[in-house]
């Protein structure tokens, strides 16, 4: 090498070649991809063979070999063809490993990245991201390494209508939506799944942490992931049985930490191994939710009042608050008892935010709308545990489906009062690890009424 460095011009080419060769040597994963230990189907490294056709009935190269079906995923066809799987690839590490595991299990996997922004930014600004050109590129690179075809599907219009506009409208109505849940319900397991099925795929594969269990009668149940810390069943609770029947979650039954998923990605030569996790709302690129809402809803000054209706301060838009919020109230003076004040109620009609002491947040019951049941809806009241927000804990409840002129609903009574229940969030009911159903919180019943202010 030092000799080559002395050569002008023609040497440049050799320099580059040498550097590249060294790069490959130091990163064996790019060339050979030994399947990681402990991964399902590590004996069958799937390499997409040319001529394996979507809808082709000719036996695939793994026909006759035992394929590893992921729990609850559609069963491998018995006629020797392979399961046709569409892997949604965000450009992150989880969905890349999920797609790799699905391919390794012997399925006929095609990767697809969903373009959800009409005007994608070129690069991420921070840790978040599934909506930039760079994310799309990362997903494509992962698909190349796995050896599967890859496409980008433009679902920006559907996403804008079903997720972004809903997000804004919910805040405008004084509620706190969960856009990830909405995206699963309306985009990944509706728009994407429908298109996939129409094009001849059998299943949609994602990097979610949740488990699907098939009962003896063939019906399906959604359960929490084996690793409770990573469980994402809360944002999948909106899926009905038909959607579950076409879902594949290769990470759901894995008892590995995120570090181990990263290590697996590294072993597989997936460059996304070291990519940061996304935490925030993907369509708010700079993470400034308030700024995003202000841009869409404008500013409207209103009052911050206490439970008696006395004016304590002002705000620039009631949508900027969430029930249970303590920070950012910007009330100049402390409460008489010196204790912190929390957002108790948001009233978009008169643009008023009511604050009060923590104990006033105690909720004894709630009603929820638009229930979706995983399987048969319960006939009457039952005892369950409930989760009220993403990454939230469980609490014991009695829940009962109710019918009203407005449609189906759910009434939930808490065994012990709970705090910080925000309308717009989902209440997901569990029976043990099993997801029973999900509904959107509409109203709450307080241990002491918050609306004490004059009408």
């Amino acid at each position, binding site marked *: 090498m030092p000799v080559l460095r002395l050569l002008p011009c023609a040497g440049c080419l050799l320099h580059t070649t040498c550097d590249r060769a060294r790069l490959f040597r130091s990163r064996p994963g790019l060339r050979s991809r030994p399947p990681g230990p402990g991964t399902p189907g590590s004996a069958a490294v799937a390499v997409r063979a*040319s001529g394996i056709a*979507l*809808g082709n009935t000719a036996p695939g190269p793994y026909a006759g070999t035992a394929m590893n079906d992921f729990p609850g995923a559609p069963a491998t066809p018995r006629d020797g063809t392979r399961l046709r799987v569409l892997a949604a690839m965000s450009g992150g590490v989880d969905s890349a490993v999920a797609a790799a595991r699905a391919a390794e299990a012997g399925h006929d996997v095609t990767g697809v990245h969903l373009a959800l922004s009409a005007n994608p930014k070129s690069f991420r600004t921070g840790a978040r991201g599934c909506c930039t050109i760079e994310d799309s590129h990362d997903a494509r690179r992962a698909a190349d390494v796995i050896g599967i075809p890859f496409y*980008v599907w433009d679902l920006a219009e559907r996403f804008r209508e079903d997720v972004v506009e809903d997000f804004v409208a919910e805040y405008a109505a004084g509620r706190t939506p969960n856009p990830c849940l909405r995206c699963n319900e309306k985009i990944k397991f509706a728009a994407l799944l429908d298109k996939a099925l129409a*094009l001849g795929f059998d299943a949609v594969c994602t990097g979610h942490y949740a488990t699907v269990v098939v009962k003896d009668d063939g019906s399906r149940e959604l359960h929490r992931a084996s690793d409770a810390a990573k469980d994402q069943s809360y944002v999948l609770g909106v899926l009905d049985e038909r959607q579950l029947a076409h879902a594949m979650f290769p990470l759901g039954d894995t008892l590995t930490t995120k570090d181990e998923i990263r290590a697996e990605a590294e072993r597989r030569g997936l460059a996304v191994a070291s990519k940061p996790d996304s935490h925030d709302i993907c369509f708010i690129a700079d993470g400034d939710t308030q700024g995003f809402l202000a841009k869409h809803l404008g500013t409207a000054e209103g009052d911050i009042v206490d439970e008696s209706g006395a004016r304590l301060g002002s705000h620039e838009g009631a949508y900027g608050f969430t029930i249970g919020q303590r920070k950012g109230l910007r009330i100049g003076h402390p409460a008489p008892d010196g204790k912190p004040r929390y957002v108790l109620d948001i009233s978009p009609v008169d643009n008023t935010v009511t604050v009060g002491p923590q104990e006033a947040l105690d909720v004894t019951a709630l009603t929820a709308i638009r229930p979706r049941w995983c399987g048969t809806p319960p006939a009457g009241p039952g005892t369950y545990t409930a989760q009220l927000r993403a990454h939230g804990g469980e609490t014991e409840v009695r829940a009962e489906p109710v019918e009203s002129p407005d449609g189906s609903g759910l009434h939930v009574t808490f065994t012990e009062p709970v705090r910080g229940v925000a309308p717009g969030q989902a209440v997901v009911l569990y029976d043990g690890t099993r997801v029973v159903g999900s509904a959107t919180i509409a109203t709450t019943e307080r241990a002491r009424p918050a609306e004490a202010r004059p009408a």
Partner: protein
Amino acid sequence: MAYLDHAATTPMLPEAVRAMTAQLAVTGNASSLHAAGRRARRTVEESRETLAAALGARPSEVVFTAGGTESDNLAVKGLYWARRDADPRRTRILTSPVEHHAVLDAVDWLAEHEGARVEHLPVDSFGRVHPDALREAVERDPGDVALVTVMWANNEIGTVMPVRELAAVAREHGIPMHADAVQAFGQTEVSFAGSGLAALTVSGHKIGGPYGIGALLLGRDHAPVPLLHGGGQERQVRSGTLDVPATAAFAAAGKYAAEHREEFAREVGALRDELVAAVREAVPDAILGGDPDPAGRLPANAHFSFPGCEGDSLLLLLDAQGIECSTGSACTAGVAQPSHVVLATGTGPDLARGTLRFSLGHTSTKADVAALAEAIGPAVDRARTAGLS
């Protein structure tokens, strides 16, 4: 595998591979004065002469570049700057709405950053610019036109433009005209001398040569402002050490393309006609894009719109059957947009989303067409079920 995307790139000809590999291990910078340099220079100049002969140009009119995109940018930006510098009134660019992005975006950039006023000449339903339309646009004020740039043949729908007639209009008023002939070279007769053009773009990898090399044929009266400054190679217009193996291979491919053009056009044209008939039989409501008259379109091009289908869906379904083609439209972040070419021909936006381009080349066979004939009907049926999302 049925490779029906030769307009994207076509396999290297054995002649080109031989010419390239013969040079790869040979040392020599064509600008050096010693024996190794002289040897490299000789190879480059012989390549230049060969390519000039293949394109009806003088050797001194061949400026090697890194490809079609660079040639287009050099012609459009360089001629604009030079013409505007000579007379600040000249800021109007006359072009077509069906240009390749290498021209389209270069022109748009000039409008955004260099004060250019862009006028898109009208096209007919085949995407063709008519000389009368150019004359009308020029004669509105011949003194403010910086340049005319209209492609020789369209890369998506294959329509061949009346380049000589267009260039004649520009010449009457002393306005330089550039044409992107990347797709035309090798398929239709391209003679620089006979064209009346000031500048003409060709590319290596579209004619069986290597990637990363192209040329701008540049009349000797024209001195575009360079994009790349440096050692002053290529008439001071395009600095940078010459890629000797690539020039040799490009010349070999160019020679082959010119010598075999008529025979190639006849054979590939017959195969294309077979493909068009097969698609029409399988999908009777498929709409052929571009000029249906073989005299007015590239012999290797077939382009269809499939009502009710998403081009992306068709691409996925055909790819899964081992058939490789293109939607023909440009991609931003991999997201397919309706093609600007198809929209410019007056096609509605929904129909414009369901287009596929099949392009043939020197390795195409009847078996490729047969594979498509078998797959296209079911693929269209399925894509229609998926609909327009």
